[in-house]
């Protein structure tokens, strides 16, 4: 960046900035300079930039209004490209060298904005405008109104491309959480920390001190910043005190849980290597002190949104903290003595104070003294009615009152109507704030358990009160968690005048009088809402959008409520407040997601043969959390060609497939057999040792939960398998049964899914292949290991393994299980031994083809809505014992003969393709829901038959075998005549299984 350092509005001395270092930054393409310690807002002020944005609805020119999180106007797009971040508050953006920001919500440029015509059309877009105008016709909403509104309105633009930065999440536990590091927070943290409590001090700013950084206070006869530095150093020295700077605690939740976001690298052009941009913190605290300070309230008057109208406390902050002048000639408009110091600070900074306008008839002695010292005219009993000026800001104010009407030239109007305690965090759990008439503010009278407020957040605005309440609450918090806190001496401070009378708005003004600057809600919008019956605060909010958008009405809500009270002639305490919800300030979704994005959105489980499959060119598919080999393509293959080749290898020769991902549960104990009988719909206890049985389990409601095999390894030792997708669900179900339903049964179980690599070897040559793997001493003949048997064996020269003779493909087939460490090696060994038989590995696609040919139900059929009977497993269901789901499976609807049940389908024209999801209707019937007879669940091109086949659930299917129905697929636009057939397409006698 080029361009000279031209900070005309920087004071020659003072401020918490490093004048020796210059930081270059760009705003709307202009190169400007600031210093470390600046925010973007203070640096813009230093360079005389007054116009920083356009308003949301009317596109009115806006300037910097505040100096903190409450900023409604100065929202900018920070950074460029993939790192562009809209709606960042210039008042909170810490300046860094190379910062690039641009104004938003303007077109084509900030100073010449075509959309500002909306301001002239003002009456058309008053409160409720969208609701009234865009109701009819409905089709216009999507096509016309919404795109138009989206273009016209909206705040900044999202980057639109993937965020290149990392985010992470962390957890912190503490005894005492202190939210905010102003005078009350520092005393609280120090008192609790000295007592030995684990203290977490959270500060949203990059510097500790809160308002002490913004004012010219003295503590113990020295500048308050000296005291802050000493406290900070002591806190840093305490081993169990932790300070999180640049961290906004944005939400309070049940069980004393809080969430905060730490801007780890937002103050840098990009995050340094190995650091995240932001880190979200889950915080669990036993005691919490809300020392979040307060937010100043403006006064509403005509054209009060012009650049140069600024909160009085913000004016002091810019002068004192960053040594910049927000203007040259000022008017102070405030009804509280706190504003007297504004005049004093401005005068000290060389700003000419033209007048102090005090609505109080008599003003106060403090104001008189300060006005005199500042050389300002004190206009008591007066108000500012309107700000005059152009798009670059205010040039004069019109004043009315006991001293008569006049116009005073100025480029800065410092306004204050008192302060609102920042009680959002105390209200997130649903506690409604209470109106305190002495303070003229809402306070958190009913606090969440374990939380106390101190300092300005508790309405204790004076420094002495903040220091003393921080000490007291800090000590109480430490005591409450078992420490003995010493009540340390309160530091010495000077007395402050504090008289105040809030003035919410000036009546009878010309021009728009803004209540909510960010959402362009004016006094007349609130009047209109009341007139149209939207008087309840929640209705007022939604009708006018008061308090919505990124600032959530931090400078607007209370004023809006006061106005509604005034208009309806009720008391503000009865009007109440809208609901406070997290987050306190906007939070990037990335910070909440942490590492869990992209592939890391959920866990991925890798099977013990993953490496082998990857090396052999597998295409993977997600099955539950697992990655499974879907098929092994050769050059030029699509999935279908590859899967057909693999399935044919199984039918004709032999294939092998990783089935390690199926759930495996080891079950032991004297009552294991009884447990399994109750768990499964079929009888398990009669199974002999060394045998395997297919089992089906139901949910309590009678529908099928899962299916799998049960092997009896020893008298009281069983191994249960589940489907890949349902493994966790079945384990959970078993835990529930064991712990809640049958705590009397002595049974232990644990998942052994990860312990074993299990490979299916299937096809007529499978036994021949296995003879090359299993050690010769182990007999695996049909006599020794018949269908549905299991044996322990050794393989490849001594590795212990377990061999199951089970088949999902309908062929002679085995599953061989070895400890997971040998999974990859076993795949290699099988591939090597299989060469002689032209064996092929197969994936889940071929697996599916083979099971459809055999009519086996899988995930598409066991879909949570089918009964054992629906799936053709009705005869397995025992009538001799009780089991989960038995009673409810007998409900009339579940045994209705018209229920769709599993059956097979072939296209009448064998060249036609079938599609899963197609609905069955009678030939000639209209494709309507009333004529729906069921649907096709699974289809495949049959490797054996050479044409498409399908499984489906069809009403009265068994009676209709041989008939023809239409499979209607409106999604793909196909209507296919299909012949209803037995679901077993291949080897219905099962001769091949037993070969």
């Amino acid at each position: 960046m080029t361009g000279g350092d031209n900070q005309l509005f920087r004071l020659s001395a003072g401020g918490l900035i490093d004048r020796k270092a210059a930081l270059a930054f760009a705003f709307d393409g202009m190169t400007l300079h600031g210093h470390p310690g600046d925010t973007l807002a203070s640096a813009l002020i230093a360079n005389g930039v007054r116009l920083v944005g356009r308003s949301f609805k009317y596109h009115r020119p806006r300037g910097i209004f505040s100096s903190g999180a409450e900023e409604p106007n100065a929202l900018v797009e920070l950074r460029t490209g993939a790192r562009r971040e809209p709606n960042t508050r210039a008042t909170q953006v810490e300046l860094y060298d190379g910062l690039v920001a641009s104004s938003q919500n303007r077109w084509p440029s900030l100073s010449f904005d075509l959309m500002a015509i909306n301001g002239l059309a003002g009456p058309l877009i008053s409160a409720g405008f969208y609701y009234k105008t865009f109701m009819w016709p409905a089709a216009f909403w999507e096509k016309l109104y919404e795109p138009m509104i989206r273009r016209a309105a909206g705040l900044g633009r999202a980057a639109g491309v993937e965020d290149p930065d990392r985010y992470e999440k962390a957890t912190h536990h503490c005894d005492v959480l202190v939210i905010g590091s102003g005078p009350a927070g520092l005393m609280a943290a120090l008192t609790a920390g000295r007592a030995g409590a684990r203290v977490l001090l959270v500060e949203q700013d990059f510097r500790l001190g809160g308002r002490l950084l913004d004012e010219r206070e003295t503590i113990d006869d020295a500048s308050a910043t000296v005291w802050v530095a000493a406290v900070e150093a002591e806190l840093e020295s305490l081993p169990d005190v932790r300070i999180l700077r640049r961290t906004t605690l944005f939400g309070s939740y049940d069980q004393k849980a809080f969430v905060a976001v730490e801007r780890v690298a937002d103050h840098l052009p990009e995050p340094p290597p190995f650091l995240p941009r932001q880190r979200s913190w889950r915080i669990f605290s036993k005691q919490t002190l809300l020392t979040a300070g307060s937010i100043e309230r403006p006064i509403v008057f005509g054209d009060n949104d012009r650049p140069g109208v600024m909160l009085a406390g913000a004016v002091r902050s810019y002068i004192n903290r960053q040594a910049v002048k927000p203007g040259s000639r000022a008017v102070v408009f405030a009804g509280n003595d706190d504003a007297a110091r504004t005049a004093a600070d401005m005068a000290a900074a060389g700003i000419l104070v033209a007048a102090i306008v005090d609505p109080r008839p008599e003003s106060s002695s403090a104001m008189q003294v300060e006005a005199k010292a500042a050389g300002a005219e004190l206009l008591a009993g007066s108000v500012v009615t309107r700000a005059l000026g152009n798009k670059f800001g205010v040039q004069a104010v019109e004043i009315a009152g006991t001293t008569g009407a006049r116009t005073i030239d100025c480029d800065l109007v410092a306004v204050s109507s008192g302060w609102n305690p920042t009680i959002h965090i105390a209200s997130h759990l649903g506690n409604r704030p209470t109106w305190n008439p002495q303070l003229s503010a809402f306070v958190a009278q009913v606090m969440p358990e374990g939380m106390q407020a101190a300092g300005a957040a508790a309405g204790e605005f004076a420094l002495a009160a903040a220091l003393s309440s921080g000490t007291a609450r800090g000590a109480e918090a430490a005591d409450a968690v078992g420490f003995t806190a010493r009540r340390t001496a309160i530091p010495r401070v000077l007395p402050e005048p504090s008289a105040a009378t809030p003035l919410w708005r000036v009546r009878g003004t010309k021009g728009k009088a803004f209540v909510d600057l960010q959402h362009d809600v004016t006094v007349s919008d609130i009047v209109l809402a009341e007139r149209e019956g939207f008087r309840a605060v929640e209705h007022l909010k939604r009708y006018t959008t008061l308090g919505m958008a990124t600032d959530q009405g931090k400078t607007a809500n209370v004023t809006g409520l006061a106005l509604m009270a005034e208009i309806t002639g009720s008391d503000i305490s009865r009007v109440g407040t809208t609901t406070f919800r997290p987050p306190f300030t906007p939070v990037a979704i990335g910070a909440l997601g942490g590492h869990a994005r992209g592939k890391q959105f959920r866990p991925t489980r890798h099977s013990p043969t993953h490496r082998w499959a990857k090396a052999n060119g597998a295409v993977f598919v997600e099955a539950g959390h697992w990655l499974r080999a879907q098929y092994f393509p050769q050059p030029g293959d699509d999935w279908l060609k590859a899967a057909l080749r693999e399935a044919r290898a199984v039918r004709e020769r032999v294939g092998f497939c990783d089935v390690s991902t199926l759930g495996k549960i080891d079950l032991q104990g004297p009552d294991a057999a009884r447990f399994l009988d109750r768990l499964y719909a079929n009888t398990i206890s009669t199974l002999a040792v060394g045998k395997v049985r297919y089992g089906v389990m139901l949910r309590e409601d009678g529908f099928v939960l899962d299916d799998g095999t049960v092997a009896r390894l020893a008298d009281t030792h069983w191994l249960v398998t589940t489907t890949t997708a349902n493994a966790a669900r079945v384990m959970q179900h078993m835990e529930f049964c064991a712990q809640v339903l049958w705590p009397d049964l002595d049974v232990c179980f644990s998942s052994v899914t990860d312990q074993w690599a299990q490979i299916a070897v299937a096809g007529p040559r499978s036994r021949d292949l296995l003879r090359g793997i299993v050690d010769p001493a182990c007999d695996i003949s049909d006599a020794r290991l018949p269908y549905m048997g299991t044996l322990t064996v050794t393989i490849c020269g001594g590795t212990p393994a377990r061999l199951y003779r089970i088949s999902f493909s309908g062929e002679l087939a085995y599953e061989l299980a070895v400890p997971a460490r040998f999974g990859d090696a076993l795949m290699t060994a099988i591939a090597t031994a299989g060469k002689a038989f032209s064996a092929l590995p197969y994936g889940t696609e071929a697996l599916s083809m083979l099971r459809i040919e055999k009519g086996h139900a899988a995930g598409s059929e066991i879909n949570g809505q089918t009964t054992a009977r629906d799936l053709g497993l009705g005869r397995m269901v025992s009538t001799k014992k009780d089991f989960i789901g038995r009673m409810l499976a007998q409900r009339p609807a579940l045994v209705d003969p018209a229920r769709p049940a599993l059956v097979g389908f072939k296209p009448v024209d064998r060249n036609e393709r079938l599609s899963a999801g197609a609905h069955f209707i009678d030939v000639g019937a209209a494709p309507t829901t009333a004529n729906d007879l069921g649907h096709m669940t699974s289809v495949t091109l049959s490797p054996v038959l050479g044409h498409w086949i399908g499984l489906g659930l069809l009403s009265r299917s068994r009676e209709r075998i041989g008939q023809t129905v239409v499979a209607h697929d409106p999604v793909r636009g196909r209507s296919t005549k299909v012949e209803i057939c037995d679901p077993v397409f291949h080897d219905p006698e099962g001769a091949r299984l037993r070969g």
Partner: protein
Amino acid sequence: MADPSLQIQHAYGVPLPSRFGRQDGDPGVRVELHGALSICTIQPFRGRRAACAAALKNAIEFDLPAAGRSNRRGHNMVAWAGPGMFVAVFADPSFVERIREALGGNAAIVDQSDGKVLFRVSGRDARTLLEKGVTVDLHPRAFATGHAALTLLSHLSAQIIQSDDAPAYEIVLSRAFAADFWHWLEESAGEFGLALSGNGNSG
């Protein structure tokens, strides 16, 4: 389980020993991944806990730990692993069989030598690192040497045991999650510098 022909492959997705993250200075986090450990779960049958405890003491001189605790000698340990469940981790591969012989009939013993992986996490930033993964309070006033917890690490089920006062921790999780654990570790420990060692790394 020595085997002449089948080669051992460790859990997928953990690289070979190396230095990761920031390269300057001492690594703040040291992580060792040990393969070939002997790991099993012990679940005493109803009313057999005392018998199991006595048999275990007799066979390998270990007590069954209380809930949330572990007992240790060097790298050998028996830790609480949930209601009615303990996990034993031993360097000697014969231990699962020794435990099975000692407790046979009194408890379900399930070999998990291949089902679980164990990472030893130490170094000056070990606790700070784990703050980014687990929500368990690991401050010494809340979690000390010998303590054991079942929790989520990032989004993975894990068991965490503090093995010494340094502090060092052992993290036991399912083998199939090793690659995801490594992803979390590399992302989270980079700022401290990470030294990865051990003999269970797969590359």
